[in-house]
């Protein structure tokens, strides 16, 4: 083998070692969760890091029935689905309006939406909570759906606007000449053409809503979503780690599944947004 090839291989190795460590740091928590979820409490205390010897699904059953995870799961699914649908609908309409229609203060409105992207949720928690209370939306799923929609809308609107602005304007003109009213232009042309961006947003927003603890903790205080339920399993002095692990696996499974199904499209979609934005 010639010298340059040897050198190339050394560089490859030098690069792959940190990469592998990085991969390990991602994979290990998953291994830890699944491994310990299959142990019982005693088994966990005796050997925290070792491979499970006597696997049982006891913890999953306990989490699902006794720890009310079935309810939490249902709450999470309804709220996430509702919020994602609302987000896609509103951001697509807003993106269409901002990208295509010519109305006064259009740029200002877009600027304000962009600016709101930079405000962290934590900063507005108190007024947000007061608003929720005043609207009598506390402890309602619809309240949480509306909250998620409000918090994640700026980014979604920004992405849809950028995506629609990159589409040829003549398509809208053609639809108008064909007799489409504004909403029909949106329904028949913009919505189907926005599919790649909407798919990306659907997945990203599902992740955000599903994994949220903070907003959910504030709005749904009597009931819980899955992530709040998982967080509540951590005790002040002791924690039932195998049960927590089982809950984490239950909570992560739908998202992992979603990711596996849409993997290619997620990457493609993010790239689309990036290039066209």
């Amino acid at each position, binding site marked *: 083998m010639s010298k340059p090839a040897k050198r190339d291989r050394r560089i490859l190795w030098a690069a792959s070692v940190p990469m592998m460590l990085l991969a390990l740091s991602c994979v290990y928590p998953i291994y830890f969760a699944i491994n310990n979820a299959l142990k019982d409490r005693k088994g966990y205390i005796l050997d925290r890091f070792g491979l499970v010897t006597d696997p049982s699904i006891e913890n999953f059953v306990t989490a699902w029935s006794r720890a009310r995870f079935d309810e939490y799961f249902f709450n999470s699914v309804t709220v996430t689905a509702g919020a994602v649908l609302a987000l896609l609908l509103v951001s697509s309409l807003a993106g269409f309006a901002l990208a295509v229609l010519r109305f006064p203060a259009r740029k200002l409105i877009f600027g304000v939406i962009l600016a709101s992207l930079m405000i962290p949720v934590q900063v507005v928690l108190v007024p947000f909570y007061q608003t929720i209370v005043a609207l009598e939306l506390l402890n309602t799923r619809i309240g949480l759906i509306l909250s998620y929609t409000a918090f994640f809308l700026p980014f979604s609107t920004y992405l849809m606007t950028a995506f629609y602005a990159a589409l*040829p304007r003549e398509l809208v*003109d*053609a639809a108008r*000449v*064909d007799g489409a009213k504004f909403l029909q232009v949106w329904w*028949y042309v913009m919505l*189907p053409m926005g599919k790649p961006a909407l798919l990306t947003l659907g997945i990203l927003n599902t992740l955000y809503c599903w994994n949220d603890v903070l907003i959910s903790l504030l709005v749904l205080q009597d009931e819980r979503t899955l992530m709040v339920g998982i967080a509540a399993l951590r005790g002040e002095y002791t924690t039932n780690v195998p049960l927590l692990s089982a809950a984490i696996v239950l909570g992560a499974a739908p998202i992992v599944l979603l990711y596996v199904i849409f993997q290619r499209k997620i990457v493609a979609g993010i790239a689309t947004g990036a290039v066209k934005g």
Partner: protein
Amino acid sequence: MAELALQDVRKSFGAVDVIKGVDLEIKDGEFTVFVGPSGCGKSTLLRMIAGLEEVTSGDIMIDAEVVTDEEPFDREIAMVFQSYALYPHMTVAENMAFALRLQGMSKPERRKVVEQAAEVLKITPLLDRRPAQLSGGQRQRVAIGRAIVREPKVFLFDEPLSNLDAELRVQMRIEIARLHGELKSTMIYVTHDQTEAMTMADRIVVLRDGLVEQVGAPTDLYDDPDNMFVAGFIGSPKMNFLSVAATGPRQVSLGGLSLDLPQLKNDLNVGTEYALGVRPEHLFGGEGPGLTMQIEVVEQLGQTAYVHGRLGAEAQPVVVELRDQRPKTGQTIEITFDLSRATLFDAQEQRVR
């Protein structure tokens, strides 16, 4: 089928006036071409007729009915765009039937109408494909098909052939002309290509800087331009403009040569400078007075050759059309002026008749 009239139509984008008052009447069934250099406002004018661009002032009338403030669809026009603007997520048939679907026509009926139009345009085998699977020429045919199914009063074409290669452009040009013959609809066609304008139009509207420079049949504009702009814009290669000085009421001098222009109805101001417009094909082989020219560049196109050179002592650049000859660079040829076809322009670039 419809007549169309523009009455002092104006358009401004903020402080910029794009269309500065256009009056125009287009007769029923006429094929009108708007032609002009980029930025002259021809596409804007077309979009105003379509209803896609608001009119700042003035009126647009279709069949003696004011449509200035109506939606595009209510004007009963159809438009073919430069980029085709086909809906990428619909099949060819769905693209063509979209307007009918919005009107609430039933599916079998739609299919029938679309199939008839596809027949005319020879795109029947493509009906179930998507635009991405079509070539540029096929896409343009579909775009035209989408216009046909509507049976509009007026067809609008916005530089429909600009995105096609040269050969296809010639072919589509002929097809659109044939289509006009078949449908006998009123059509307005925008292009910057004077060849397209000359070959397709019943009437050409030459625009510059938002104003109509001249309206007329192609041959009228070619033979009898109103000003230097139209004279230079229509015809390829361009008309030669030679600066001459008036030496008599109907006589000018060029490089020591006296040229008589008996066709002039008005007297010239002796001593004033004018521009003499002579087309390349009227500079060779005629009977008139002559000058010698040394050839600098030859464009040999087969039977025809365009030779570029400089004329007379003032070395004014000219293009001459030669037929059935093989001229060589460096050769000297005799230029003769066919003065009966020559035109004269004053310092304001207006025609002197």
